[in-house]
């Protein structure tokens, strides 16, 4: 069966934006899941927040729900509760989930809602033409912080592990094979799947060169059921960018099975 996952909408991301790589990766993942009989296309519900990432729902010919800024996650849980046979994925941004809607992110992880969150993480507000955000490094100069941000960023993966996410992973948008693998694993995981996708903003905070050299995949033998090991691994670096030259690990850091919110609701 040939799936047509494109729409007639013109893509308005900056030419060369890694968002396009995320889009293509996702279309391929959906195609493969459908071809392998793991997903009925009508059961895919793709959510999006507001930000550059959010345009993705116009570019994929599947059920979609473009929420308000930061408010996608409770809507995803709502849809999953309403119809547990849906496969609910959500595309969010760092501004969307780490600034505006942070409380929803934490609570969705806490309640282990069976939804899949892909955060396009570019560490800057891009659609509003470049301001610092929750993950921008200290000292980051932007239109709203012309003398440099005076705040430290936080480690979102660490936060998700603390909050109770049962699937925590990171990938790099430029590595489409890796991204596909992570997306597929997230979607097939039962429970709250959190994927941070490093997606350099080529216009307002171009970190491509920085990440190109720093990212590396953790080994296949990485123990994914040990919270302490996961916390250590994701604390390796990443958040001290760009001053220091640590490595940025990619891969599935944590994956455990727990009853989901929706299972408990209908028990």
């Amino acid at each position: 069966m040939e799936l047509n996952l494109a729409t007639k909408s013109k893509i308005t991301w900056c030419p060369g934006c890694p968002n396009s790589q995320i889009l293509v990766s996702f279309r391929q993942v959906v195609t493969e899941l459908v071809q392998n009989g793991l997903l009925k296309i009508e059961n895919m519900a793709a959510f999006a927040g507001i930000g550059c990432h959010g345009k993705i729902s116009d570019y994929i010919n599947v059920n979609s729900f473009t929420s308000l800024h930061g408010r996608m996650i409770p809507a995803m849980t709502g849809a999953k509760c309403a119809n547990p046979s849906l496969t609910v994925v959500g595309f969010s941004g760092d501004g969307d989930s780490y600034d505006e809607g942070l409380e929803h992110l934490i609570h969705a992880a806490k309640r282990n809602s069976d939804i899949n969150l892909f955060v396009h993480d570019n560490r800057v507000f891009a659609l509003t033409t470049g301001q610092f955000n929750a993950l921008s490094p200290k000292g980051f100069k932007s239109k709203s912080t012309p003398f440099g941000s005076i705040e430290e960023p936080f480690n979102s993966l660490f936060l998700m592990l603390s909050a109770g996410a049962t699937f925590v992973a990171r990938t790099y948008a430029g590595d489409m094979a890796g991204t596909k693998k992570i997306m597929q694993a997230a979607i097939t995981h039962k429970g709250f799947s959190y994927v941070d996708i490093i997606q350099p903003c080529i216009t307002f905070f171009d970190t491509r060169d920085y990440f190109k050299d720093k990212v590396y995949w953790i080994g296949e033998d990485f123990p994914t059921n040990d919270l302490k090991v996961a916390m250590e691994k994701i604390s390796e670096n990443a958040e001290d960018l760009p001053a220091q030259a640590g490595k940025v690990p990619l891969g599935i850091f944590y994956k455990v099975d727990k009853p989901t919110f929706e299972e408990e609701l209908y028990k």
Partner: protein
Amino acid sequence: MSEDSNKDIFTIGIGGAAGEGVKKVGINIGKLLCDMGFEIYLSIDYPSLIRGGHNFVRLSFSKNKIWNDYAKLDILVCLNEETKEIHKGEMKENAEVISGLALPEIIERIKNILKKRNFELNREKNESELINGNIAFAKGLEAAGLDFYIAYPMTPSTSILHYLASKQTKEGLKVIQPENEIAVINMALGMAYAGKRVAVGSATGGFALMQEAFSFSGMAELPLVVAVVQRQAPATGVPTRSSQSDLRFIIHAGHGEFPRIVIAPGDPEESFKAGAEALNLAWKFKVPVIVLLDKILSEHLMTSSIDSGFISVERNESIIFPGTPEKVVKVTSYEHDENGITVDKAEDVKRMVEKRFAKSANIEEEMKNREAVKIYGNTDGGDVVVFFGSTKGSVLEAAKYFNKSVKLVQVVWLEPFDTERVKRELEGKRVICIEGNHNGQLASLIREKTGIEITEKILRYDSTSFDSIELAEQINQKFS
């Protein structure tokens, strides 16, 4: 005129410290009287704390319909010493005090006093139940096929959450309490998108947090019912006291322009009906529907006739949901075309605004077949009293003491507004508008819609309910 002279009405007050079970004793007495066939109105006054402080339940009852409780007591039940002191000025001449007794003895004493005074009924237990507006509203939702109720606790809306939470079943109704009101309404919109009949509820402060998503429901045409319970505001205000000061905020809620329905019931029976009506209308027209309540309506109990048998579950077969083979269902908070794809061309924007507002005419047509405006008293009267919400009870009880016949006009639908009907009822008449707010918001709305300026207003903004005797005196004076 004085309430002492109204021998048809008997009033019992029950006072004690918070945490001493004042409400429980009051409601048990109420149930006893309900079983005896009396019509009852029971008010509950309590401060916003868990222990200490003075709680007071007052119930007035009669063999005839009773719409409000009375200030003067025939019996005062004291669960602590302080109660006697606080309420000594509220006693009728021959009033009796019951103190130092447990519930079963209190009940026995009350029965004996009623017998002694020949205040008894020789009739079968009526079909009525003692119920407040919140629970009646929740029963209305249930009767109309509610799938999900989502709420974050906030006085005085919380009893809806508690009641519906207790009614959950494995396959049926589900109740969720998320992290905050913003999560509440966005979760609800996700549910509506996936095809479930959902309602949310809060006090107006909580609803204030929901504004952006309320507007989203208008933009995306997602059916949603919102219960908004007013309490004394602004800000945190007086959490356990009432107000009608959110009318203007509610009818204009959410940024931007989109059709919505706002229904303001005035008693538990109307609240029940409004709950069911709201759910059916939200799905029929794919609009958000607000049921506007207030603390008095939400918590005060009245003998009411609630019959789910008259409620139908009206579904909208034209809406498709994700999970439908061969269909792609796209919903967005951006302006969008008929396929749910973002648009920003001027002609597309205009077309979509008009598409949404095309529903307004149908909603207004629907309104004509509903009880959008209710009339009581002398329908031909030259003098008119107009009101909305729980003020209905105070006014209808006050009407028992009017010196002349007066037409009572209750505005039930605040949005859309039945301009034609209200105009017809008010035009050329002496009109008094009675509201529980400072600015006379209903009067201003009536002027905006009908051009009729109401100069006579009786406004109460001290967070408590209208005393019907006082109200009758004021109205008699204004219409003398």
